């Protein structure tokens, strides 16, 4: 045997050579917010729960979803889904049908009877005023944290706008009841049919509770000055939508004109079509720019609703058995704030419309008068500061009473945020977690080679004739296979899906798989960035490495 190792034959492995010293940057595994998460009013972890749906873990998806939103079945039907508008997948083919997936998860939970667990009730007590989406969301989040919750609602039933403003063909009442009951089952001290809470009552509630959340919504209909609401042929849209079908039938004639272009206007128009009425929508906005969701307008058109765009009513008067509306075309300019606009009538463009019933649906105002002198207002809503706290310490407000962002999911989000703030305020030392400052994952961070082009799995609508005959739901849910297929379309932007691509694409074997994740071996990683480039979800990024 030679005393020295042979110069001809190797006797060591290259693992003795630390190639990590070549590196100037190191991959960093950090889940980053997806565009959908950034756009979501409840800040739901969409990429995460869709992955769970894809993996067949619907219960897990429901648990993830309901961390932020207790109403997946409701939101899956009526959310205005800014998430889908932000979805990176639209740059490849079509956005992911997030709402339809959310509905799938929500419906599955209702069908399976999944319930929220609530920790034992603490002594700390919060009063929630208003049983609409904001109030229920806040009650839910507070109960999850173990707070005692007393809920005050003037109506005999919970749900607010979801019950009294959204027709059953968009949101089945069984779904609404199911998701609300699941919250009250957590142990909420309900006070239904109570008088509206005025300034004095607020004081009382503040004295008997550790915090109060005000979510009374926007209950006062805006009124058109040119219209005398005392006329029998004028029907308020909120009243109309809240009324039972028999009453709706009694209150409307054969020809209905709906004034307004928002969701409420669409709901009124389509409800009237279900009563067999001839319906025309008169809207200020030009075609294609109605504030209602596009799908609502499309379905209204399918159902035979006529539209007169870019025009306004100047006056209306009875003529024979009907009504004549004197209208004029307008130049419409949207304003900066949500809901703000200006119009300029166009000279010489007058025209007339004939109707039997006029239903104005131009929005609702919050009733601030009852707290006049007690709470500061900011324009048409209660003024709130950071964390939705009003001018009265310990009194928080959210939903339509405190914001002009008048979407159900916005209200749910505000309820969640306010509840989080209340919980933090009532729990000494419980600082709110700092916001994740990471940038949203842009489309160019997604390696689309790992995502096959596949059109969206669309929900089907019932036939138009069948729709007009009942108030049954129009949109039919995705089946389990469709839901899995649709979930598989999600890029999971910014969320590691443990696909192992980073591990398999490392030329230096510098990535080790762990039970649930990966670790970079800095002894060998040369910092090439292949793992980042081949990541299908954009959940790894290169970070400068200044260590020697």
């Amino acid at each position, binding site marked *: 045997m030679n005393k020295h190792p042979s*110069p*001809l*034959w*190797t006797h060591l492995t290259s693992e003795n050579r630390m190639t990590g010293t070549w590196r100037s940057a190191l991959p960093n595994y950090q889940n980053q917010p997806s565009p959908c998460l950034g756009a979501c009013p409840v800040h739901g972890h969409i990429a995460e729960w869709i992955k769970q749906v894809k993996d067949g873990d619907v219960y897990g998806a429901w648990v993830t979803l309901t961390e932020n939103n207790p109403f997946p079945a409701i939101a899956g039907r009526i959310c205005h889904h800014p998430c889908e508008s932000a979805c990176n997948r639209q740059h490849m083919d079509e956005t992911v049908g997030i709402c339809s997936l959310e509905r799938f998860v929500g419906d599955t939970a209702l069908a399976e009877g999944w319930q929220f667990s609530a920790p034992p009730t603490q002594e700390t007590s919060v009063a929630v005023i208003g049983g609409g989406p904001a109030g229920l969301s806040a009650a839910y989040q507070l109960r999850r944290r173990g707070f005692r919750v007393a809920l005050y609602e003037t109506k005999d039933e919970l749900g607010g706008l979801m019950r009294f403003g959204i027709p059953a063909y968009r949101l089945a009442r069984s779904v609404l009841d199911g998701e609300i009951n699941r919250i009250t089952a957590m142990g909420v001290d309900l006070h239904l049919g109570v008088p509206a809470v005025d300034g004095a009552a607020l004081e009382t509630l503040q004295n008997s509770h550790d915090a109060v959340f005000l979510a009374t919504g926007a209950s006062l209909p805006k009124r058109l000055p040119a219209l005398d609401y005392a006329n029998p042929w004028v029907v308020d849209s909120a009243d109309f939508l809240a009324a039972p079908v028999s009453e709706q039938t009694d209150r409307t004639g054969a020809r209905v004109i709906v004034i307004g272009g928002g969701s409420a206007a669409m709901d009124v128009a389509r409800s009237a079509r279900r009563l067999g009425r001839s319906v025309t929508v008169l809207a200020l906005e030009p075609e294609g720019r109605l504030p209602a969701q596009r799908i609502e307008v499309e379905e209204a058109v399918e159902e035979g609703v006529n539209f007169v765009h870019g025009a306004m009513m100047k006056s209306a008067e009875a003529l024979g058995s009907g009504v004549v509306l004197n209208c004029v075309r307008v130049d419409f300019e949207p304003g900066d704030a949500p809901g703000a606009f200006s119009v300029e009538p166009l000279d010489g463009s007058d025209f007339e419309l004939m109707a039997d019933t006029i239903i104005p649906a131009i929005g609702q105002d919050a009733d601030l008068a009852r707290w006049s002198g007690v709470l500061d207002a900011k324009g048409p809503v209660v003024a709130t500061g950071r964390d939705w706290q009003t001018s009265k310490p310990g009194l928080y407000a959210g939903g339509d009473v405190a914001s002009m962002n008048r979407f159900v999911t916005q209200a749910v989000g505000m309820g969640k945020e306010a509840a989080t703030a209340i919980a933090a305020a009532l729990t000494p030392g419980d600082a709110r977690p700092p916001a994740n400052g990471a940038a949203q994952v842009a489309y160019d961070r997604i390696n689309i080679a790992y995502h096959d082009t596949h059109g969206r799995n669309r929900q089907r609508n019932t036939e138009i004739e069948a729709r007009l005959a009942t108030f049954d739901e129009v949109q039919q849910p995705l089946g389990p296979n469709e839901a899995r297929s649709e979930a598989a379309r999600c890029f999971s932007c910014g969320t590691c899906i443990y696909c192992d691509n980073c591990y398999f694409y490392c030329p230096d074997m510098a990535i080790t798989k762990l039970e649930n994740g990966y670790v970079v071996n800095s002894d060998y990683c040369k910092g090439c960035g292949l793992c980042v480039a081949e990541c299908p979800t954009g959940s790894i990024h290169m970070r400068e490495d200044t260590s020697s």
Partner: protein
Amino acid sequence: MNAPLFTEDLKLLNGNHAVAWGVCLAEPDVAPVYPITPQTPILEKLIDFESRGACQIELLTPESEHSAMAAAIAASATGARVFTATSSQGLLLMHELLHYASGARTPIVLFNVNRTPAAPWGFWPDQIDSLSQRDTGWVQLYSESPQESLDSVIQAFRIAEAVNLPVMVNHDAFYVSHSVEPVSIPDAGMVRDFLPRIPREIQLGDGTGRSLGAPIDQAAWNLTRREMDAAMKRVENVSEQAGSEWERLTGRPSAPLEFYRCEDAEIVYVTMGSMSGTVREVVDLLRESGVPAGLLKVRLFRPLPVQALRHALAGTSCAIVLDRNYSPGTGGVLHQELKAGLFGMENPPRVHGMLAGVGGVNVPVGSIAKLAADCRNAEQTAEPVWVE
């Protein structure tokens, strides 16, 4: 000649077939061979043996001598006993790999039939093909006859495997390769004992996962040559032992240097290969006419047994080197080697370099005998002399 310990078959064989017999007895595992005149009968005979089941060899017939040597090296590095054969152009085509083989310390045995290289084309006996490979790290043996070729090829495996260096055995085209003479075929069992299988310290695929020939730094490369140097230094002794054992077994002397009537020789002819037979006749004639002449036949050219040569030529006044090769610009290779080997010797013989038989031309007995008279009292010259 001593009596052999084993009874041997006597067969009438030409030199190449005698080589094939020797190879067959040495039982190599792998033999990649490419045909070339005048080597081809070795290849054909081996294939004939193998196809008749007389031996079990993995025979490869690749597209070139270069690939043959590449395969030989690889097979040897994987632990196989390997043989190949070639000639002239083929050997020259192998040149790159001859370096590789010795550098990788693969104990390959190559049989080369000495032939003129082109241009112009020729097929004649001339040793420049193998002599020009003297710096490639191969042990070189030269054979005079079919019997010696058989014996040498067997000894070559013994030497190669003892020192882990490749060995090239050479005989002259046609004069030996195609000359027929009675050849004794040694006993197979005896040869097997003479060539025991020595386990390699390391080989490819031995389970250690060690790789051969990976890029290396200067100092380590330098070390490989020092190790080769040490191995080369052992060759003379190893071949001496192999030769004396062979002589004990077969009765045929097989030392690195062969002496014929060198006792008290005033004139010693120094030569390699087929020329030796002619010189023996010359020596006998000279001795009859009272000229004290002798023959020193170099069997082991690389490494040249320098001390043995100095010892053998001490007291000789005149050495006449007959080179059947021509190295342009210097002359005969053996002449140069011998001069270098004798450098610094006390009372060295005069060394006369003769270019005799270059390109295979016939060198008659008279021409060689005349050299004795020409050189006996002549000063040596630096310039080579072309023998007519």
